[in-house]
Each structure stands twice: as C-alpha cells, then as structure tokens.
C-alpha cells in the first residue's frame, strides 16, 4: 500500500510541489523567526560585550524607582568617584558621561531622526575609539565626532556643529577630530556620537553638576571581580550601585532579549497565518488527489485492502510530503533568518561581525508544524476516502457532490451564535466591560468561522452575481458557470483568500475609524487652527525656545498663541502627566476643553487643575491637597486642586503654574497652539509661523490635517504591517486557486475537447479559464471584505465609548484588495489556461 502511495505521488509531482510551497512558507517563517531572534541576540550580545571591555566592575546610578526618575539622567556624584578611586584593590577608574542630545546637521535638521545623537566625554574607556582625523577636544568649545555623525550631518573637520540638550540652549562647537571604533567601524549600532570635554558633557547632561553616568573600575592585579564588587559596595553611597562586568552584560543581554522577542513574535505571527491558510490548501489538494483516485482506491478495497490501510496509505503520503516540505522550509527559514540577521545587523547595528545562531528549537518547531499541519489536513480526506465502497471500482465514477446541508446549517448556527454574542456584548448586556468586550471578540471569531463554513452555500448566488460582469462574452459565461459548478471546492479555494482579506479589512476599518474619529473631533471641537510641534516618533521629545512665541503672537491674523510644557511628575506617589502654560484658560479654550468645576483663571503657584478621571483615580476633589515632585525637582510641592476639567483626550492631565518649568524634564515648551483669526489665509499664517520657527529645527507649524497625521502615524505603520500579512496570505491563495483550476481543467478534458471540436478557439478557452479563476478569487475577496467590514463595524461600536465614534470605510484599501484579488485570479489562471488551450482534441473525445 505504501509503495502504491509513493508511486502515486511520483505521478503527481507538479500538484504536490505547489502544495508543498504552502507548507514550506509556513515552516520557513517559523524557522526564520526563531533563527533571527537567536542570531540578533547573539550579535547584539557581542556588541554589548565590547562596552567597557576589560573592566571588572561597573558603578551605575541606583535603579530608578519610578518612570519620572528614569526619564532624567541620574548621576554618580564626584564624591563617589573619589571614594572608588581610593578603595584598595582598584587599579584605575574610567568615568563616563553619556546621554542623548540633539545636534543640527548642515541641512538645518536634527541629526539622527528617530535615534538621537549621544553625547560622551572624550577619554572615557567605554568604547575603543580610534581618531581618524584631527585631535581630541581640549577646550569646552571643541568636540570630536564619530565618522557616522560626520557622514550623517554633512559636517567635517574644521566646521562648527550646533548642539543642545533638554536643558541647555543651542551652542556652537568646533569639530577638531573625527573618530571611528575598533574594527574600522563608523558607528556602534548605527548611532551618532559627539565627544566633548568632561566638563562640557556634564553641562549638557547633568546641568553642570560634577557627576558621571557610569564608572568603569579596573581591578589591581590579584583582586578578583567579586572581591572588588564587595569592596566597592560600602563606599559608593545610596544613590549608586555596583555590579561585576559579567552581571552588567547579562543585564544588557536581557534588555536586548525583550526587543528581539518582539521582532521574533511578529515573524512568528506571519508564519502562523501562513500555516493557518495552508491547512485549507493542503486539505483541498488531498481531497482533489483522492477524488482522482477513487477508482484506484475502490479497486484496492475490492482486492482486499482494509479501510485502515487506505487511511494509512494516504497519511503516509501526507507524512512524506510534510516531511520533505517542512525540511525544505526549515532550511529556507534558517538561511533566510541568517540573511535577515546580516541585513539587520549591518544596516541597524553596524556590527563588526554577525553571529548566526541556529537554535535546535527553530528546526524542530518548523518540522513539527509543517509535518503536523500536513498530516492533520490530510486526515479528513483520508477517512472519507476509506469509506469508498469497493463497488465504485466497477462503476463509471459517478461524481455526485456530497450535500452541503450539514455544513451550511452548522455554519449558520455558529454565525448566528457569534452574531448574538456580539450583539449582547455591544449593547452591554453581558455584565461588566470585560465580559462585554470578551463576548464581542469571541462573537466576532465565531461569525468568522461560521461564514467560512457558509462559503459553500454562499458561493452559488454570489459567484453567479459576480460572474455577471463577464456575461457579455460567451467564454466568460461558461467560465462563470464553471466557477459555480463545485461549490465545496470553490468555497475552500476562496476561503484561503477570504481569511486574509477579512483580517486586513477588519483591522484597516477599525484603524481608519479611529483616525476618522480623531479627525472628526479636531474638526469640531479644537479651536486652534495651527499646532507648533515635532514628529510624534522621536526618542528625544521635540522642543523649542519659548522666545519664538512672541514672534508668533506678533504675526498678523494670529488671535492667540499658547505654548505648552509637559512633564511626568510624581503626584501622591503615582506617575502623572503634568502640563504647564503661561495661559491656562487659553489652552483649555483652544484645545476645546471644558471645566467641570472651578474657573479658567490663571493658576496660582500653589494651585493645580486636573481632569475628572485623573482626580477620581487619586480620590481627590476641589480644595483637596496633593503633593507633586517634578522630574528634575529635588523637593515635593503641595498644591490645592483649584479646577476640574471634563475628560477630554486633548486636555487630560494635571496643570500647574509655569513657575515649575525649571523642574520639568524638558525645560522648554514642546507644543504651541495658534488661533488664527476667522477668515484669514491659513496658508499665509502657516508660512509666517514657519518663518518665526526658522531656527527651531525640531518643530514646525502644522494644520489640523498634518497634526492628526502625526498623532495617527502609528496607525499608518500598523496598516502597512497588516498589508504585508495579506501579501503572504495571497501567495498561498494563488497556489490554492492554481491547484483547483488545474484539477478542473483535468476533470473537464473531454468537455474542453468537445468545445474545441465544435469550434471554440484557443483564445476563448483561455478566457473561459481566466474568468473562472478571477471569479473564484473575487468571490473570496468580496466575502472577506464583507465579513471584515462587519467585524470592523462591530469593533468600532464596541469602542465607541472610548472615543471611536465615527465608522469609516477604508475605500481605497478595499478597492486595492479587490484589485489584488483580480491579480491573484489572473496569475493563478496562467498555467491552467495554457493547459486547457493545449487540450488534445482527439485525446479528449476518444472513447475510454
């Protein structure tokens, strides 16, 4: 029986090859994800190990206790350095000052974009730096820059660079040296770096305090790392902590693991989608292969093969196919993962060398998933095949479609149950927000499964309706009828596409609705026409000199302009978002906020305002007293709650008087709102504001549309990521459609021969197959769009209370999905149509 199965496989190489592509894709993504995760980890670990190489112990600031503390660079005081240097067993100490700053390139923009430039003190021993040109900085007005900084900024030896930190104003420095790193590298991990004198670095990073970021301690001969750590612990003081170099590296490695895991999970997600869609494809292929072998199986049964043997022979075939495809997938995945690691390591980390790690789990998981999915998917067709009565062998294969009633009824029940759960969840009848949300989500999942089961039933009317597009053409008419001929097969084929399109349509609909809701709010409630702000995605928050506010207010047609400062402060022991502005009433007014209690008078130095839910969170009300410590503040201040704002995303948070700005993390304003006079030319005002901001490289004037675009930029990234997912599902879908069409063409050889005999041209034959293909693909896409829109609508409704109160349809994207489906249909039709056109008329119509 096994030999028969193997011979059978050999005879159907092409179809099996197609099917195995789906398995290979799934396995490859899984292997690649695991290899990439491990390899990036290994590469970054190597990179981390270069830092402070040779040191035995590291002294760092004590762990931050809250987020607000973490934001501000804590320093190791100079006394601690002195104490460490005089400790027995210490050979010498290298003190590092290092933190993110902004530097302006020759194009007037901040260098580095998302990644900021790092300020360091020249002469620390954190990294092995090699001067390439010039010399080390000797005075506070001199700097050496990394080769990568020189390349990115367009500035070189002898030129000046403008740099500033969160607390300092823009300062010009003369570039006296350009350096690289060990191994001839231009950067470490792609970052840009500027080396200052220690005093200047301390002015930028620690506001001039004589403090350090890290002390690298080198032990004298004969002193072990552990002894050194033990000796240092009592002398460094409460604000610092000491670890051995090994522990420091282990910690850095653990930090990297968090990031690499995220990347890995993303790829794993892709792998799982490919695997999920593959199940349909593999099951379909095996059904098809078995359908073509019914006579053979019946004959085997007639000569004495047991049902178990039939099942086993088909499962053996699946096992073999799964093993080969999964092995190829694992190999492709390992190679892909290694290649991807090299690409990422070179472009993002600028690593000296790439370490490729292939964990055994990567190969095992890829094999297990590939083989498991193939065998599982083949199980149902195998059991069905074993039920073929031996008498079939004697009969001409009468292909009666099994009724789809059971499938349809169960699909309808599941879809209805899901719809019911969603309705209950949406109307808040399941008791409790979490239960409602869970109910809605589970309901959405059930609707999805139910509709997938209903595809066979839906295919008849829908395929017919879709095919009407081509009914002007006779070949098209025939193709459309062919597409509707085998509902079960059409349904399974279209499902592969439907799943992908449903997922992307649902998410795209939700994200578009969120964007539309935000835009809607801005259009209606926000009074300010212009916003002075920087990009939402940047490591160092964009800020600007408050002096420009006077210039902006002086512009004709500007009715009001208010700047806002932000900080994360410790209020009554919790991290809270704090704003301040010179015009409290103005900011509430321009952002469209309203006061629930109190008035919008200027806040006194001991007064604080807050939105309702934040107040509720801390259990305070009007007249209550709260204690706040700001990011850079050394002492706590007491405030009396003087006003309470109605909850509103734009005005939520705490408000204090501008007197505390110097204690904020960023001591400069990060945003300004500009109210333009009614009827004024907004474009002209925007240009005037931009002129006023000419010396502020981080911010620009943005209108509503641009501002909302910045706020919602993450959604755009999310939507792009989801389109990639669809692309993958589509590759699998193409294979599925090809498989189905080739089978159809084979089954209808006689019909094709007859049509050609009575005068159908090759062109018409090709058109007929293309129409069938495109109709099946469009059917899947239309269903996917419909279900996806429905789910997206349900999710939007579920989130309506959270502010997503506008339902928006991503029409362009949906049009794109439909176009992509047509493309899938066209691509899939190429081979089957060519095959149909080449049908040998005589062979087709000859007697059996």
């Amino acid at each position, binding site marked *: 029986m096994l030999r028969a199965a193997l011979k059978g496989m050999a005879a159907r190489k092409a179809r099996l090859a197609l099917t195995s592509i789906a398995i290979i894709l799934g396995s490859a993504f899984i292997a690649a994800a695991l290899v990439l995760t491990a390899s990036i980890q290994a590469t970054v670990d190597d990179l981390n190990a270069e830092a402070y190489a040779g040191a035995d112990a590291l002294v760092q600031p004590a762990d931050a206790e809250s987020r607000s503390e973490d934001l501000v660079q804590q320093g190791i005081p100079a006394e601690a350095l002195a104490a460490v240097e005089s400790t027995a067993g210490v050979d010498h100490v290298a003190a590092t000052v290092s933190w993110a700053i902004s530097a302006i390139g020759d194009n007037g923009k901040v260098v580095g974009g998302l990644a900021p430039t790092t300020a360091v003190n020249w002469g620390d021993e954190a990294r092995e730096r090699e001067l390439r040109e010039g010399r080390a900085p000797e005075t506070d007005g001199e700097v050496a820059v990394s080769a990568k900084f020189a390349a990115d900024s367009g500035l070189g030896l002898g030129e000046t660079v403008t740099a500033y930190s969160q607390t300092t104003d823009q300062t010009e420095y003369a570039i006296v040296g350009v350096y690289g790193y060990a191994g001839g590298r231009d950067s470490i991990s792609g970052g840009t770096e500027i080396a200052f004198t220690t005093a200047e670095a301390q002015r930028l990073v620690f506001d001039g305090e004589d403090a350090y970021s890290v002390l690298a301690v080198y032990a004298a001969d004969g002193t072990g790392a552990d002894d050194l750590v033990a000796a240092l612990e009592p002398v460094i003081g409460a604000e610092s902590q000491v670890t051995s170099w090994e522990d420091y590296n282990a910690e850095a490695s653990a930090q990297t693991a968090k990031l690499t895991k995220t990347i890995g999970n993303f790829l794993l997600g892709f792998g799982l989608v490919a695997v999920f869609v593959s199940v349909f494809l593999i099951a379909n292929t095996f059904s098809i292969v078995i359908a073509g072998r019914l006579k053979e199986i019946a004959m085997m049964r007639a000569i004495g093969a047991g049902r178990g043997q039939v099942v086993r022979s088909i499962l053996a075939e699946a096992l073999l196919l799964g093993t080969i495809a999964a092995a190829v997938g694992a190999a492709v995945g390992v190679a892909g993962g290694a290649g991807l690691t090299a690409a990422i390591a070179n472009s993002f980390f600028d690593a000296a060398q790439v370490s490729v790690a292939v964990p055994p789990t990567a190969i095992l998981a890829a094999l297990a998933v590939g083989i498991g999915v193939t065998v599982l998917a083949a199980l149902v067709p195998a059991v069905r095949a074993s039920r073929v009565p031996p008498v079939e062998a004697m009969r001409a294969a009468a292909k009666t479609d099994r009724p789809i009633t059971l499938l349809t009824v169960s699909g309808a029940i599941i879809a209805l149950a899901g719809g019911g759960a969603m309705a209950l969840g949406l109307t808040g009848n399941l008791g409790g927000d979490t239960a409602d949300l869970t109910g809605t989500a589970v309901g959405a999942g059930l609707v999805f499964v139910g509709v997938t089961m209903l595809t066979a039933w839906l295919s008849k009317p829908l395929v017919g309706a879709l095919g009407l597009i081509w009914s002007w053409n*006779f*070949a098209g*008419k*025939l193709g459309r*009828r*062919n597409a*509707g*001929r085998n509902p079960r097969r059409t349904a399974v084929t279209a499902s592969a596409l439907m799943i992908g399109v449903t997922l992307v349509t649902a998410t795209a609909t939700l994200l578009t609705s969120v964007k539309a809701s935000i835009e809607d709010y801005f259009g209606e409630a926000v009074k300010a026409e212009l916003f002075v702000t920087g990009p939402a995605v940047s490591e160092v928050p964009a800020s600007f000199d408050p002096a420009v506010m006077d210039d902006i207010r002086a512009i004709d047609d500007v009715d009001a302009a208010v700047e806002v400062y932000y900080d994360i402060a410790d209020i009554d022991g919790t991290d809270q978002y704090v704003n301040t502005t010179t015009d409290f009433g103005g900011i509430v007014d321009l952002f469209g906020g309203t006061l629930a209690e109190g008035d919008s008078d200027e806040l006194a130095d001991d007064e604080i305002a807050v939105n309702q839910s934040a107040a509720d969170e801390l259990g305070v009300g009007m007249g209550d007293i709260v204690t706040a410590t700001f990011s850079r503040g050394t002492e706590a201040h007491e405030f009396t709650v003087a006003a309470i704002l109605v909850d509103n995303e734009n005005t939520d948070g705490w408000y204090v008087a501008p007197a505390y700005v110097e204690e904020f993390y960023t001591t400069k304003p990060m945003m300004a709102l500009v109210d333009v006079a009614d009827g004024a030319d907004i474009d002209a005002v925007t240009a005037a504001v931009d002129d006023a901001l000419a010396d502020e490289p981080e911010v620009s004037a943005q209108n509503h549309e641009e501002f909302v675009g910045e706020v919602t930029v993450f959604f755009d990234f999310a939507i792009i990521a989801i389109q990639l997912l669809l692309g993958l599902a589509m590759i699998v879908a193409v294979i599925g459609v090809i498989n189905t069409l080739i089978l159809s063409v084979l089954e209808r050889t*006689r*019909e094709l*021969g*007859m*049509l*050609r*005999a*009575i*005068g*159908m*041209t*090759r062109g*018409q034959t090709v058109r007929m197959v293309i129409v069938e293909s495109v109709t099946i693909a469009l059917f899947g896409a239309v269903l996917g769009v419909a279900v996806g829109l429905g789910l997206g609508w349900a999710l939007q409704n579920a989130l309506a209370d959270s502010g997503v109160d506008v339902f928006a349809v991503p029409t362009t994207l949906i049009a794109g999905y439909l176009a992509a489906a047509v493309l899938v249909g066209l691509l899939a039709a190429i081979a089957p149509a060519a095959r149909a056109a080449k049908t040998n*008329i*005589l062979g087709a*119509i000859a*007697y059996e």
Partner: protein
Amino acid sequence: MSTASPVRTTAVSAEGLWKAYGMGEAQVVALRDVSVEFASGAFTAIMGPSGSGKSTLMHCLAGLDTTDRGTVHIGDTAVTGLGDKALTKLRRDKIGFIFQQFNLLPTLTAEENITLPAAIAGAKADPAWINQIIKTLDLADRLSHKPTELSGGQQQRVACARALASRPEVVFADEPTGNLDTRSGAEVLRFLRTSVDDFGQTIVMVTHDPSAAAYADRVVFLADGQIVEDMAEPTADKVIDKMKHFEELVAAAQGEHA
C-alpha cells in the same frame, strides 16, 4: 430505403490520404492511400472492424487530425494545411459533430447546449430553424433541463440538435448509438435519416452496428486502413453478409494493392 436527390455535388472529399502513428517497428499505418467522396445531401456510413482506421478517417476528414499525405476538402475549402485558427473556424461554421458520449456541457441547459456553436461564434442562431429541429426531435418540453436531468436518448437528441443548429456543410457522427439502448438508438437514427431526407443534410457516420448502417444511403467498408468495399442502398442483412466474408474482401484488396 432512401430517395436520392437527382443532382448531387460533393460535400467532403479525400484524395490519397496517408496517416501513420509511431515510428519504426512500432509504426502503425492507420490510413493507406484512401480516396473517397461524400455527396452532399447523402447519409454515408463508414464501417469496419476495430483498428480498421474508420475513426482516423473521420478525424482527418473533420479537420481534427492532420494527414501525412493527401488532401481533404470540405465543400470548396481545402482542409489540408490550414492553421489552428482557420481549422477552428471551419469546424465551427461548416461541420457538426455527434459523439458517442453525447458530450453536452453539464452547466448549460438543453437549449443553451443546442445554441452553443452559435454562441461560441458570437452569433445568434436562426430561431425558426432551431424551433424546427426542436420540434422534429421532440425536445420542446426538455429545453430548460440540464443534461444530468435527461435520459441518454434525450441527451443524444440534444447533441443531434446542436450538430444541426448551425446548418453545417456536413455532420460527422462517431458511433452515435454506441451508448444508447436499441429504442433510443433507433430514434436518433430515424432523426438523422429525416434530416437528410427533409433538410438535405449531409451526414457521415462511423459505426460498427449493421442495423445502424442500414439507415444510410451508402456504406464504405474500411479494413487495415484501406477502403475494401463501397455498398449503395445497404440493408442490415446485406451488411452482415458482407462482414461475414470480410477476410476475403481484405485479402482481395491487399492482393490488388501489392
């Protein structure tokens, strides 16, 4: 049994046809210098044992298969040497086919199957003519049925209607009764006879059934790729009688040839 029209032109003619399959040792010569003419408005049967080349002859005449040597004409058109496009158009416009397996499209109704050749050509079938065929074949109450809802005899009658629908120069029927019971077979043959007598249709039918051949005006006997006998006004008995002495006929023909 037939009434031949007084003036006859030639509908299909073959001149010196040779056709061989395979190479070297395995070569089988299917047609060996066959020359034959089929008059228009006549019903001709081609008979012969399995492997005699009768199907090959029909395929070559119908432009479904190429010949090695010799020429075929359908009406005034030289079939030999035509490209696929021209052949397709020729089959569509000038030839009708009836197959043993009926070969109806299962997705189309009986009526759509009948008008299929016109639809493929992008033309409209002549409704009066179609109605007449449908009436003659007694298919009026079956028009909206799908092939799977029809009996074998009904399916073959639909196939006959399809073959005649475009008023072709010639209808080739390949064992049209091979899959039918005696009664249904007789119905189909009676219709073919009627279409010759009443509509002046030219029909060339391949068969191995002497009683089917008896419906024809003429029977051409083929053996080992050669025409061994040409019988006018056949009856079943005459055909059976001829077949009983087939070996002698073949021997005679081969002797002649050698």
